[in-house]
């Protein structure tokens, strides 16, 4: 079985259909604004509370894909010893250490605005783990659906995140990212 096929089997067995819950944590205005500044997006909805309120919001909102980029649990993160050479964490035993991961795209459904000062929780389910032949050879496509809610239970955002896994790019430098 190919590396991609083997990884697809491991993903399906370990993760497909299973749900994990995590805390994104308190949405902090400083970090939301740093995110906006980092992409040079100075929309006053993210910086001016009064401006946001005069346009139908209940306060400062975060940039639309702030949660979808942040995505992970509010933890300090892996220690230095748990990081591998490419700057990514060492994968777990059922993951894909022999393959390179790349963002493949996202679908977002915005249910309600996300406000600075809210506490957000996530609920993530792997909904697809398939092998597919691409232009650059076989790849593993993993789709994860994440629902984000405020601690009041209000649904904020549904994200379907697509991640592509394939043999490392040095073997095929003209691949897409």
């Amino acid at each position, binding site marked *: 079985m190919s590396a991609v096929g083997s990884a697809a089997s491991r993903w399906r067995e370990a993760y497909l259909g299973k749900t994990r819950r995590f805390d994104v944590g308190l949405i902090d205005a400083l*970090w939301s604004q*740093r*995110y906006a*500044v*980092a*992409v*040079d*997006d100075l*929309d*006053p*909805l993210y910086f*001016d509370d009064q*401006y*946001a*309120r*005069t*346009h*139908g919001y209940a306060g400062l909102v975060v*940039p*639309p*894909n702030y949660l*979808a*980029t*942040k995505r*992970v649990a509010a933890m300090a*993160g892996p220690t230095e010893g748990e*990081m591998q*050479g*490419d*700057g*990514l964490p060492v994968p777990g035993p059922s993951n894909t250490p022999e393959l*390179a991961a*790349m*963002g*493949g*795209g*996202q*679908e*977002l*459904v*915005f249910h309600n605005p996300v406000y600075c000062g809210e506490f957000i929780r996530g609920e993530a389910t792997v909904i697809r783990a398939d092998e597919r032949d691409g232009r650059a050879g076989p790849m593993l496509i993993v789709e994860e659906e994440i629902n984000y809610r405020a601690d009041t239970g209000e649904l904020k955002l549904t994200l379907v995140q*697509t991640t592509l896994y394939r043999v*490392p*790019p*040095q*073997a*095929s*430098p003209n691949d*897409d*990212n």
Partner: protein
Amino acid sequence: MTTEQRLIGDVGLGMALPELRKRPTATMLFRFSACTWNAHRIHYDRAYAQEEGHPDILVQATMHGAFLLQMLQAFVGPAGRIRRFRYSNRGKALPGETLVCGGVVTAVDAATGEVSCDIWEAKGDGSICAPGSAVLWLPSVYPDAGR
């Protein structure tokens, strides 16, 4: 700061969304990685990115999404809303390259205020980095609040 508010009556089928031009820099990529706690070296370490076969560090997948959403938010204005948004990462982009976000209206429902559109992010040579689509909502009248 004031922003012109677009209304549903201003939008028609086939209308082009105003373009947004972005030119990501190495500094932009580093700050984006830093504030999202992303240590993947292909986004800030040129020598490492080249080891992986890339010509330079790569623009993050979700930064392409951020640029498209910035264009959409400007289109709907502060009183409008983005309802749905999807995009695919098709091509890599490097610091210093100009990325042009654009789109076209594919459906308008004046009764609900919903606008559908196809969107894309392209390089100067016309190659597409990130195609996608979106559903937006626009008000039918100027909101009273603050006016």
